[in-house]
């Protein structure tokens, strides 16, 4: 029997495939059996009702996309009365993503969503759109540590800190989150980017800038996952540009204990179920019996040589 299950701290997931926040909703249940997933991760919510950013909110760049959705939110009450009960129908653990403009407000919503039906809380301390010029809590170790301590005090549920690729201090931020009590890291959110329509000379996003996601982000987020997995001892959940089973395996080898799939769901809404079965097939082909054998199995000790001869192509 192939064992696809993974542990994220005390949580056991039946497989390592889950959606990324903001790229999944109840609507997915119309497309496939969402109980097949390792976890359900909801779009980030804020306490109060928010409208989100001006349109256009997405645009395409070569082989990837930018978004400046912002965090439109129907508020925490709507979430508790409507969204949690929906996911209660399923066995799969529910992970609620939250955000706030200040650490205190963050702690408050964290407490408010610590209710039955919620298995873990993902804290989006990295959204590049919510504060001016993309400076989010997760840009600096100090602000990460401060907000994470308040969040830690506000709930007994597992806390997943979602990091940003926009910082130059990835490992320091990761360690700050860990030392402040994070149970896992989600690595990473989108990368602050821009696109301009050369004919109108207007930014392609109504919000001027937005976050890069999709395949272009993968080498960057994968590097961060590797750095984080080396720097902390809590589990790392990889996220960024995953579209194929090879991508999933690459993240696991780099040190991720599970992965989140975002933009790929827009390209193929049933991609996650396919990835689960392809991951199983991959294990079988490689003669492995469990996903855990892949996690962190990168062979980084040897300086690989890579010099090869004609024979290699034979």
């Amino acid at each position, binding site marked *: 029997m192939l064992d696809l299950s993974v542990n994220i701290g005390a949580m056991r997931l039946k497989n390592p495939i889950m959606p990324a926040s*903001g*790229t*999944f*909703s109840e*609507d*997915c*249940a*119309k*497309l*496939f*059996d969402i*109980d097949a997933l390792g976890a359900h991760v909801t*779009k980030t919510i804020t306490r109060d009702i928010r*409208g*989100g950013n001006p*349109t*256009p*909110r*997405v*645009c*395409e*760049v*070569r*082989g*990837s*996309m930018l*978004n400046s*959705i912002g965090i*439109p939110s129907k508020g925490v009450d709507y979430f508790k009365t409507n969204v949690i009960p929906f996911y209660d*129908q399923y066995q799969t653990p529910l992970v609620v993503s939250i955000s706030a403009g200040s650490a205190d407000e963050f702690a408050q919503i964290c407490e408010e969503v610590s209710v039955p039906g919620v298995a873990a809380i993902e804290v989006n301390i990295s959204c590049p759109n919510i504060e001016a010029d993309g400076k989010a809590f997760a840009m600096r170790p100090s602000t990460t540590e401060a907000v994470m301590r308040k969040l830690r005090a506000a709930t007994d549920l597992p806390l997943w800190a979602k990091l940003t690729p926009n910082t130059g201090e990835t490992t320091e931020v990761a360690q700050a989150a860990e030392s402040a009590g994070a149970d896992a890291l989600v690595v990473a959110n989108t990368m602050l980017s821009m696109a301009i329509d050369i004919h109108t000379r207007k930014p392609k996003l109504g919000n001027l800038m937005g976050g890069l996601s*999709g395949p272009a982000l993968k080498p960057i987020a994968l590097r961060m996952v590797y750095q984080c997995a080396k720097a902390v001892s809590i589990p790392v959940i990889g996220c960024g540009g995953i579209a194929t089973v090879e991508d999933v395996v690459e993240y696991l080898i780099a040190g991720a204990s599970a992965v989140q799939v975002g*933009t790929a*769901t*827009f*390209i*193929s*809404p*049933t991609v996650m179920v396919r990835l689960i079965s392809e991951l199983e097939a991959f294990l079988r082909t490689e003669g492995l019996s469990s996903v855990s054998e892949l996690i962190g199995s990168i062979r980084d000790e040897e300086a690989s040589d890579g010099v090869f001869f004609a024979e290699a192509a034979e």
Partner: protein
Amino acid sequence: MTDMTLNPIFETICRVKSNEPINREYRLIVLDAPSHILKCEPGQFFHLLCPTKGDLRPYLRRPMSIYGFYPEAGELHFLYKIAGEGTAALSALEAGENLNVVGPLGHGFDIQDDWQKLMVVARGVGLATLAPLAQKAQQMGRKLTAICSARSPEVLMSIDHFKALGAEVITVTDSEGTSGVEALEQLIEAHIQAEGVDAFYTCGSNRLLTMLQTICARHGIPGQIALEQQMACGVGMCQCCVRSFRRKDKIIHERVCKEGPVFNLQEAMGC
């Protein structure tokens, strides 16, 4: 469990049966589609994964109104115009190739019980969106009048399609000077006087929207409009496709892909 109390949505790979220009500007693509994805409503759409063709590499899907759905024949039709990279790639698909489609999506047009005399006002690709309404009207035994507008008589479309479905067709064109807002308003007013209209349907431009809102308000006639907006997911998860609506004196946002693409004509806001 896939939640079947909700209307299911399918991601399906369909074979292209044909993909031909129908006039100087528009093309019709016909897909071989399994009948379970053809339980559609007029006004609904599919989200198409336009192929990679040479330098054309569209990334996101492209929304496309259902121009025709034929469960018996197992056919799904889209009428489209080349607008950019995605539709250009779509036009390069040849018979026998595959196209990945997601749908049916969104909420389509309603025909309420007391709406006996329907009037459609359409232009350009709007005709693609409104054509299936004629079929439904015929099935429900309602009378439908279609005002079809175009730049010139040569690029008028779907006239025969509407006629075949029992609709009365009135054509107006820019080149003949009959499609301007004033001319159209007179035409519609005359039609309301002569025969009466119980509901309007459109997916017109800003100007058309404003004009129809005025006429409908004046006569207390209900109306529906299909709107467009850039889409990523197409099924309601990403919230990129919102537009503003005026409802009970408040401005609200709704998703074109999920609450729409068909909305109350009076609530819609121009740009």
